[in-house]
């Protein structure tokens, strides 16, 4: 077993967090945790219970998924601060606190709500971050995510992803499929497309306003681009044969797609508005699953030109390709991290399909999952977490996992099998 998995998963300091938050149709549950976590205290904000879902439960759920934090139980400390001046530092330090967030909710003018919060370093008593917000009451959930982002950035120095969205497909039955969009924690899900035929391979545009996907509604696979807010869509690749695997160029102007119009699966580029397709790949084998590198200069893809499927990379304009994976005989679904520092993919080994993350700097690849039928890994925009599809108890479920494999969250729905997840970009 890879060394890091042993140290971070099996060693005694595993804390099982079974925090469950029911959000719309998806239920989220956190499992696992890393070592050396930052102990944060989140005493209840003043009057937050007046807001639907509150604030600190959502903030805690967000931070728990990162594997970076452990949580001091406020019930163990005899102090209920809602202002920085009320913090009893010795009491919180005695409970192992490294930082503490305090806040309060007050009524603003004209039906608005004012929320003020501060994050303090418990040992130095210095303010790390904080702000005052004026919102409509129905924006409180998004505000909780924003506060979680600010706390995460203050502690880790990395940008938070709690205000992002995910898209996924639910298979309700053999003739009922939905393409849905939800908040990254599974809340506020809504349906973009309902179909009696399969929908696969959703892909977010870089600016987050459009989703490309493959629909079988005309009894063969066709690529569509769908405007998320207006609901309008157009077919952008509907050539003879099969059309699939849309991947956006980072500037949002083009899609790499897989067409079979030349008799076998090859990679082409089309404008995001449709039109003529230019062939990029050049083999007599299967070339599929294109994925642009973060800087748009290269395209990773899966090819079985060497016998079994392996991952290759070529220039974004096509041309010669270099092989990237050399171990094992089945490596598919290349997923470059948004910052270019890693590549996730799926390896089949001894009949199991599992997500691996290969760090670019070291070339070291490790499994980040311990399930059996993993598919569709997708990085969060800060590259620190992935979402992927798997199977558990005979149903399709989603997991998020931290890049080092230590902390997992499971997202399930009672509505059927959930699959094909894809993590959206930072909101603009």
């Amino acid at each position, binding site marked *: 077993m890879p060394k890091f998995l042993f140290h971070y998963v099996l060693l005694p300091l595993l804390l099982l967090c079974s925090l469950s938050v029911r959000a719309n149709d998806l239920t989220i549950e956190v499992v696992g945790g890393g070592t050396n976590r930052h102990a944060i205290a989140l005493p209840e904000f003043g009057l937050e219970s007046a807001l639907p879902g509150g604030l600190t439960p959502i903030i805690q759920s967000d931070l728990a998924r990162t594997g970076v934090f452990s949580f001091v139980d406020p019930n163990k400390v005899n102090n209920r601060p809602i202002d920085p001046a009320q913090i009893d530092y010795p009491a919180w330090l005695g409970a192992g606190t490294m930082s503490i967030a305090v806040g309060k909710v007050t009524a603003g003018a004209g039906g608005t709500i004012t929320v003020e919060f501060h994050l303090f370093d418990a040992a130095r008593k210095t303010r790390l971050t904080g702000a005052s917000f004026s919102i409509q009451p129905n924006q409180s959930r998004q505000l909780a995510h924003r506060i979680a982002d600010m706390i995460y950035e203050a502690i880790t120095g990395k940008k938070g992803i709690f205000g992002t969205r995910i898209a996924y497909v639910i298979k309700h039955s*053999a003739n009922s499929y939905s393409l849905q969009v939800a908040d990254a924690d599974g809340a506020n899900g809504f349906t973009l497309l309902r179909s009696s035929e399969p929908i696969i391979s959703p892909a977010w545009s870089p600016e987050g306003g459009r989703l490309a996907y493959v629909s079988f509604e005309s009894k*063969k696979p066709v690529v569509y681009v769908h405007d998320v807010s207006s609901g309008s869509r157009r077919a952008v690749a509907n050539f003879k044969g099969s059309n699939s695997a849309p991947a956006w160029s980072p500037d949002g102007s083009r899609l790499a797609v897989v067409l*079979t119009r030349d008799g076998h699966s090859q990679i082409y580029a089309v404008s995001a508005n449709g039109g003529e397709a230019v062939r990029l790949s050049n083999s007599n084998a299967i070339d*599929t*699953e294109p994925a642009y590198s973060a800087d748009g200069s290269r395209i990773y893809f899966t090819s079985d030109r060497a016998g079994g499927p392996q991952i290759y990379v070529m220039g974004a304009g096509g041309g010669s390709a270099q092989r990237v994976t050399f171990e094992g005989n089945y490596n598919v679904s290349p997923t470059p991290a948004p910052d270019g520092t890693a590549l996730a993919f799926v390896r089949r080994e001894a009949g199991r399909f599992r997500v691996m993350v290969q760090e670019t700097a070291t070339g070291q690849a490790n499994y980040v999952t311990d399930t059996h039928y993993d*598919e569709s890994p997708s990085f969060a925009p800060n590259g620190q977490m992935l979402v992927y599809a798997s199977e558990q108890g005979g149903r399709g479920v989603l997991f998020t996992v931290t890049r080092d494999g230590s902390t997992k969250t499971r997202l399930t729905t009672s509505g059927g099998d959930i699959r094909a997840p894809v993590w959206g970009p930072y909101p603009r």
Partner: protein
Amino acid sequence: MMWKKVLLAAMVAGSLAACSSPKGPTDPNAAGAAGMNGKNGANASGMYGQGGLNGSGNGMGADGSGNPLTDPKSVLSKRSVFFDFDSSLVKDEYKPLVQAHSEFLKKNQTRKVIIQGNTDVRGSSEYNLALGQRRAESVKSMMRVIGVPENQLEAVSYGKEKPRATGMGEADHAQNRRSDIVYDGE
């Protein structure tokens, strides 16, 4: 002697019986020929024209029961070619099926087929879509070699998205590694 006459009569009667014509399968072309002047007139553009002897598939089948494409006695009602694991090779046992559909399409040039490739349910959706495509192309290529024109054929894939067998056993996987031949209008 009397018993010798009875024996001789029996032998002669037996020989005569053996000489009568055997009841074998009816000549399929004979039924078609009957159609030339009759039932297929509406669909055929002429006795030797585009519609062909069997019309647009609405003509009489080998046993006169109707559409050869759906007649369970006809090989044309069989539409599925099954494949081995990780393979898109058309096995010998399916070649007569592909041959029969090819001959039908050559004789009925207004008919089109979509060949739908499928895989078992394990692995990447997109890689399986490409494998299913290979299985569809494999059948299509064979039909092209036999002489079916390109414009009557399209190969597409469903990959692993529409499995016929939903279990996870080997028998289920084998059912799903398949190309299906589907005619226009079906």
